[in-house]
């Protein structure tokens, strides 16, 4: 290109970090829509504003979810993106792929779409970025052919996700991928056919490091944990001591100050440990979680719309997490039920709990109040006395 049509974007081809502009150009070689997208994006860079119309509601037959409709607001200029819907394709648990599967997805997308993708969307789906209305159904049919189903969107359960867990991590307190598969399969209907007051998300991390950020962005957060004593291999501790300062890096940073180190042995007062993972993270060879493992269930996190962002909070301090996960599935069902019955339009679970009170939620899902559910007790004297006097 002698005189580039995208001088601003071209600048972003430079620099060491992988350039999305390069990928767009790569796709643009084959695909008119990708070419149009490049042009419209350049236009946005010039105008300092996006060029998509509001909303768009399209889909495939039998599903209410999985496709995000999108139309250009300057279709005359960029007819290639007049329609430019994305498809959310449910990823395999843990984002593991055979290249065969990946190539199959690429082939389908070259056939039906822009040739542009996101690996992955923030919720975890494969995002197939941009196709036209008439291609949606055929594309889905072809995806089905190669074994890929759509993910969630709209007022539905969203595509759940899980950390890599036991597939490659020694800290997995339960099988996050297996649980994810069970959850995904159990709630296919709730994912594909929006029926709730709003979106609802489940994310699964197999230990408190929370590598899928479940505590920050899942209405139901599952976080692996353990009971009992951290297993200490004192020989390995001594080995660690050669390369790090156990006192300042580990012991002093323990939030509960339940560790001590005398230069020879490391001691943990496990009763006071809150399982933050800090020490284990720093000494993976020397320390291992206790053998009794399971998960803490927390609920309610979300982004700020409408009442402000929330973190999830503990409702089940410890749940065994073994297949077939009936206890967890039952909890999810009860939670859906309560939220669906009581939630207002566009009210997330956390907001509902804040509006009606944690106590009501606990009662509805059959949990009894425990001190582990709170950081600290209430400071206001405005409490009910429901049991009668």
């Amino acid at each position, binding site marked *: 290109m002698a005189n580039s049509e995208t001088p601003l974007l071209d600048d972003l081809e430079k620099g060491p970090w992988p350039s999305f502009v390069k990928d767009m150009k790569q796709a643009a070689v084959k695909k008119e829509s990708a070419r149009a997208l490049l042009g419209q994006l350049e236009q946005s860079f010039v105008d300092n504003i996006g060029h998509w119309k509001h909303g768009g509601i399209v889909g495939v037959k039998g599903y209410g979810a999985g496709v995000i409709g999108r139309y250009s607001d300057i279709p005359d200029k960029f007819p290639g993106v007049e329609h*430019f819907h994305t498809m959310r394709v*449910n990823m395999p648990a843990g984002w593991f792929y055979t290249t065969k599967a990946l190539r199959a997805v690429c082939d389908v997308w070259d056939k039906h779409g822009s040739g542009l993708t996101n690996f992955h969307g923030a919720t975890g789906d494969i995002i197939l970025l941009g196709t036209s209305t008439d291609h949606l159904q055929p594309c889905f049919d072809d995806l089905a052919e190669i074994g890929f189903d759509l993910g969630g969107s709209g007022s539905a359960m969203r595509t759940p996700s899980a950390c890599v867990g036991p597939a490659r991590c020694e800290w997995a307190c339960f099988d996050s991928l297996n649980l994810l598969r069970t959850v995904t399969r159990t709630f296919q209907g709730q994912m594909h056919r929006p029926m709730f007051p709003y979106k609802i998300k489940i994310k699964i991390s197999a230990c408190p490091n929370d590598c899928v950020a479940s505590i920050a962005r899942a209405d139901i957060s599952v976080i692996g944990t353990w009971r009992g004593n951290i297993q200490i291999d004192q020989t390995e501790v001594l080995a660690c001591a050669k390369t790090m300062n156990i006192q300042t890096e580990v012991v002093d940073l323990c939030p509960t100050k339940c560790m001590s180190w005398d230069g020879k042995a490391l001691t943990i007062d496990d009763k006071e440990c809150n399982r933050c993972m800090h020490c284990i993270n720093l000494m993976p060879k020397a320390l291992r979680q206790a053998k009794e493992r399971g998960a803490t269930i927390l609920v309610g996190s979300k982004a700020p719309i409408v009442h402000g962002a929330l973190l999830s909070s503990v409702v089940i301090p410890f749940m065994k997490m073994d297949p077939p996960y009936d206890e967890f599935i039952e909890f999810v069902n009860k939670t859906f039920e309560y939220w669906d019955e009581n939630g207002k339009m566009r009210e997330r679970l956390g907001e509902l709990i804040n509006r009606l009170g944690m106590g009501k939620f606990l009662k509805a899902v059959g949990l009894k109040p425990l001190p582990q559910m709170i950081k600290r007790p209430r400071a206001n004297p405005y409490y009910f006395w429901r049991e009668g006097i």
Partner: protein
Amino acid sequence: MATRTDFGPPDYETMLPPIIKKNYGMWKYHERVKPGLLKHVAESGDELYTIRVGSARLLSTDHVREICDVAEKFCGGYVRFTSRHNIEFLVSEKKNVDPLIADLNKRGWPIGGTGHSITNIVHTQGWIHCHTPATDASGIVKAVMDELYDYFGSWKLPGYCRISLACCLNMCGAVHCSDIAILGIHRTVPKLNHEIIRTKCEIPNVIAACPTGAIRPDPANKSVIVNEDRCMYCGNCYTMCPGMPVADPVGGGVSIWVGGKVSNTRSGPAFSRLVIPFLPNTPPRWPETVAAVKNIVEVWAKHARKHERMGEWIERIGWERFFEIAGIPFAEQIIDDFTLASETYRTTAAFKW
């Protein structure tokens, strides 16, 4: 044809490399060999090497095929992506590690993102695909990562530093809990198109969508009235109603938030907090935003103790001191006035000058 539905995603078990299948759930420990290279050792003694490669996330199918090429050459045809959208090549034979690295270097694909590095910036659609952005996503991310590139492939930082970007207040992703969050914000009230509001919008839902109660019905016009003094441009009404766009070339821009985290380590999960209410949209490289992020990273790197994350450091020294050290002017917007504001006020006479 009766379309097949509800069959779900491919079973992950079909996607796992043999070494993982064999040692599934039986990993013993891991080592961080060098930036971007992890070694996981199983109870069986098997060793799995993971090479993490930075990704722009927005990939062409050809690029994906290229990833497949590499995976087929070195990893038996298996590859994975991370929760922060990096690519992970899983190598079961040690001898393949160096050749793979060499191959990746040749391609110019960055290796890193593990341990105390700056890993990929989780981000969103921006002008690429969304209808409510106040700024772009991919463009800023590219500009910032170019500038912070050295931190991706090295371990020069005191601790984890997770950067995220969302292009509007909907905050897709977890910017609300990131060490540094780049967040698109609007600064203009919705421009009302009453005709559209009348015909296309569910007025009660539009009213309920406003966090500050700025919208009230205008039954005479079958439309709504916005109390401009109460509107803080969240754009939530626009989400509900095409007749109320908030995007504006001058009004839109970027805000910077710091100190959030997700992991339960030490201090536990925390929200990111506003430190710079507005920086302009200056494509293609958003120099003000890039400079602000870099400054914060480096101020933290210089002052924090080992393993201390952004928020932990700031909470230790106090926010008043952070503004001073970082050379960031204090702005009125930083003082909260939403529903939990009183929790953020300084309810003690103990503070630093």
